[in-house]
């Protein structure tokens, strides 16, 4: 029993981080109806960013994540202007191909520079023992950091002028233009925020899991499952979707082999799409 409880809590902690990654994916979809297929590689860049900054300057990894966040924002804005902007009004296939190209470029360059051998950030915060349960310090901190990020995103979207612009452009881009909102710049900002969230999630994961430049793929798939769970386009739903997925990942291995985890995840994915395509927590219509 204690073992299951420990797994559930462990999964929950991880779920917050998954949630942040999925928030990035779903924010971009919600604002501009673009499925960002470079989401995974950007998560991986977040991991490498923390790894490199930590290695080169011996900075605290959490400080490194702040830098990675800024770089993630800038990278996303650049990707938007170079690859996404020109196809933003084209059929979905064009935006899929555009972001997939970015995906291939990052993975190609990343493999050339870093090879495919696993890295890890040599950093530990010890562990936390609560009665029968032992939790890794880095995971506890990552969960709190993820909560902070989610809260900050919420405040940004609902309490600031630019957040209001983002919601307005998501709701009706033409109307936003008529109100004086430079909608293209707002789309660039939204894409940047989406990649920033992906990079932050990657950075947090790097503090407790080893990774390669290809590691983002798995988290990209999780982000899709979570996005659909929480309702694609609904960043707050994505956080809850992340928690559900995290807990499932904690529990499943106590009943069946770990290799079954993705099978169950995708069964869930298909099931949600069939019975509740708007997600558990609703989303944009």
């Amino acid at each position, binding site marked *: 029993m204690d073992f299951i409880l420990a797994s559930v809590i462990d999964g929950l902690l991880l779920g917050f981080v998954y949630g942040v990654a999925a928030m990035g994916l779903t924010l971009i979809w919600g604002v501009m109806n673009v499925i960002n297929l470079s989401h995974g590689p950007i998560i991986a860049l977040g991991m490498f960013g923390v790894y490199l900054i930590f290695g080169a300057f011996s900075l605290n990894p959490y400080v490194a994540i702040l830098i990675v966040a800024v770089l993630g924002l800038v990278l996303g804005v650049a990707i938007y202007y170079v690859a996404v902007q020109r196809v933003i009004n084209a059929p979905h296939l064009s935006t899929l191909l555009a972001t997939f190209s970015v995906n291939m470029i990052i993975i190609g360059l990343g493999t050339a520079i870093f090879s495919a051998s696993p890295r890890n950030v040599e950093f530990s915060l010890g562990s936390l023992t609560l009665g029968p349960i032992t939790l890794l310090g880095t995971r506890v901190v990552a969960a709190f950091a993820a909560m902070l990020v989610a809260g900050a995103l919420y405040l940004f979207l609902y309490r600031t002028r630019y957040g209001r612009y983002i919601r*307005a452009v998501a*709701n*009706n881009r033409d*109307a936003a233009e*008529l*109100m*004086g*909102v430079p909608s293209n710049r707002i789309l660039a900002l939204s894409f940047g925020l989406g990649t920033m969230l992906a990079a932050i999630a990657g950075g947090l994961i790097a503090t407790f899991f080893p990774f390669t430049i290809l590691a983002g793929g798995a988290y990209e798939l999780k982000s899709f499952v979570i996005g659909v769970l929480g309702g694609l386009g609904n960043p707050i739903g994505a956080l809850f979707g992340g928690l559900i997925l995290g807990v499932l990942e904690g529990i499943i291995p106590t009943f069946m082999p770990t290799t079954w985890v993705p099978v169950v995840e995708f069964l869930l994915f298909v099931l949600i799409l069939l019975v509740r395509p708007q997600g558990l927590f609703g989303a944009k219509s």
Partner: protein
Amino acid sequence: MAVLEIRNVTSGYGEVQILWGVDISLEEGKLTSLVGANGAGKTTTMRTVMGLLKPWGGSIWFNGQDVSKLPANAMAEMGVVLVPEGRQLFTDMSVEENLIMGASPKRARDLVDTNLERVYTMFPRLKERRVQKSGTLSGGEQQMLAVARGIMANPIVLMIDELSLGLAPVLVLDLFETLRELKQTGLTMMLVEQNVQMALAVSDNAYVLAQGKVELQGPSRELARNEHVRSAYLGL
């Protein structure tokens, strides 16, 4: 003096030309009606002025400045505001958030509170429903919100496309009353309105648009007496 001048503007969609050299000038503090059959190009004219469509030829002048190439958001920043056909509300946002979005241009930001009070006095219904999602408002309430949101932008020129489409007669009277109030504040306006009789009664000047060209123009009072206008647009 003309605040906004449309000079020999041609425009259209894709390959299809709709406007064939339109000249319109909006005089300061005056309400100008744009009259014409369905498909005459009234909406196209307003969209082209606003920068939602690029003019193919001709030019658009605002306060002596060539604004032909400016996008819609820049026009709004300058004080040219469109209340579009079909309302185009932010349906996921509350009534008040829609109004605050209306005040996005820099020139309107500091006046949010004053203007909120102003539009809530004009439309008490909106005040009662300020937290309701705009998508769930009735048609009439949505139209009030669309007009109110335009006022929130603190416009110098306000263009309204289809003021009363689909509204109950009482509400139409209310909205025309609002137009009169706005005129008294010195606002320059351009109005497209299905009810031509009322439009001509409330406006100072009018233009009749047919097949993308200005067919007739003049003081509204004179056009209301014009034989052609009476038979073609007033059904008299």
